[in-house]
């Protein structure tokens, strides 16, 4: 589904990620950990072609990202739901419109009931008409999760989705991701939260990837 082959990346300075090779199988569940600034967000951006590797090959759905035209990238992103670390909303549109944006831009309709259900499910039904700047960090994150799943993607990439959530909400969110994984979606979650990882591993066969010293490695047999 997503494959890295000797991938390296740098933002123009020194190399941030080096010689990464891995393969994320369809239906797999991965956690991504590593110190702050180690390149977790950068890794995820390589996974949805916001960044192109400075060396090596990234293959998404069997296509090398460097060969993708701009429209192909757009098409690809409709199969990948992303929860961005900084959420990325359109501040002039109400929450409900932001959550349905992936459908809107691909000219697909969605019933208001379905949107209501989804918002209710992340506990934001009462905020459907609020503008993103009026939301708390945790509310924004939940909205970002709702937006990532609304289009029914094959892959979900979540960058610190629980960073601003309390434990209870974090667990609920995780349950959602586990649920989606059981439905066959491929999931990658970047997080610092070891408790969350442990909690999840009791529910699903999740593996842990760690970025350290510019390399990626599978963390210990079972963490």
């Amino acid at each position, binding site marked *: 589904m997503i494959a890295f082959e000797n991938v390296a990346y740098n933002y123009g300075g020194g190399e941030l990620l080096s010689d990464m090779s891995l393969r994320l199988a369809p239906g797999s569940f991965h956690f991504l950990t590593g110190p702050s600034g180690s390149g977790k967000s950068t890794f995820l951006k390589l996974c*949805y072609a*916001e*960044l192109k590797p400075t060396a090596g090959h990234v293959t998404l759905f069997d296509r090398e990202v460097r060969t993708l035209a*701009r*429209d192909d*990238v*757009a*098409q*690809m*992103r*409709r199969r990948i739901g*992303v929860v*961005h670390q900084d959420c*990325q*909303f*359109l*501040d*002039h*549109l109400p929450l409900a*419109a932001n959550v349905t*944006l*992936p459908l*809107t*831009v*691909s*000219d697909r309709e969605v019933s208001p009931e379905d949107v209501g259900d989804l918002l209710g499910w992340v506990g934001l039904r009462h905020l459907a008409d609020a503008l993103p700047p009026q939301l708390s960090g945790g509310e924004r994150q939940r909205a970002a999760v709702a*937006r990532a799943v609304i*289009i029914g993607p094959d892959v979900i990439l979540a960058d610190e989705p629980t960073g601003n959530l309390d434990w209870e909400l974090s667990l609920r969110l995780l349950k959602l991701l586990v649920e989606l994984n059981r439905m066959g979606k491929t999931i990658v979650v970047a997080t610092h939260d070891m408790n969350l990882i442990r909690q999840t591993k009791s529910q699903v066969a999740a593996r842990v990837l760690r970025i350290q010293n510019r390399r990626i490695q599978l963390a210990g047999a079972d963490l």
Partner: protein
Amino acid sequence: MTRFFTLLLHGDRHADRVVPPTGHTAWLTSFTAGAMTFLAVFALALSLASGRMADRWSDALARTATVRISAPADQLDFQTRAVLDVLATTPGVESARAMTDEEQRKLLEPWFGPDLPVDALPIPRLVELTEASDGYDSEGLRQRLAAEAPGAVLDDHTRWRRPLATAAGRLRLLGLASILLIGVTMAAMITLAANASLAANAQVIQVLRLVGARDTYIVRAFVRRFTFRALAGSAAGALAAMIGVALLPSADAAGGFLTGLGFTGWGWLLPLALPLLAALVAFFATRTAAFQKLKELP
């Protein structure tokens, strides 16, 4: 082009909303389109009026000039023949012919009645000449006539009309060139406004790309907005200018060029085409600018 009309007819409510309404570029675009159309209407009026004038004066030019021969009766035929010979060999004179007594009588009839004895009176003989399109050298002709037939006078009314007709023709060209320049200027200004708007909305564009919007979708949102602003501004400008033209004092009072400046008949429909033209210009200017800009973004 079909995209243009689809856009005007159907639009796209969704695509419209994803770009936040921006105050000053909206105003700038409408105002530019309005002001430019206002100017274009006057340039159009000027161009049409000078066109009409050039036509009228060119028609006058096509008319014949006359050579008038006054001479004692015994020399009249001789001098007439000399004049015809001169004219026949003058470059730029297409044809020349002496008027018959009958024709001359007709000319004089309104003044002297039908029973004028043309042969008995010392009436000058008239020779009518038709000019070729590139004209003749009237000064040279005058000198030759004086040498060959002392009684001949060239009555050359085309002389003062030719430069006027030329000027009117030039004026028409200037008017059309102005309209063209106005159009190009408008395209340039709308391109700048569109670029400013695209730059101000870089964050919005980024989010749209991240959720899987194609370039065409994003471009559509901007293009639609700018096209409608240009259309509205331009319509207002055209209307104002047409009212201005309609309020010009009507012709006969003063006569001449200034009062001929209005539109006539179907001509009133021409300024109405300008807003459509402005919308077309805005459509392509924004489209080009937007696609260009998007290519620079990841």
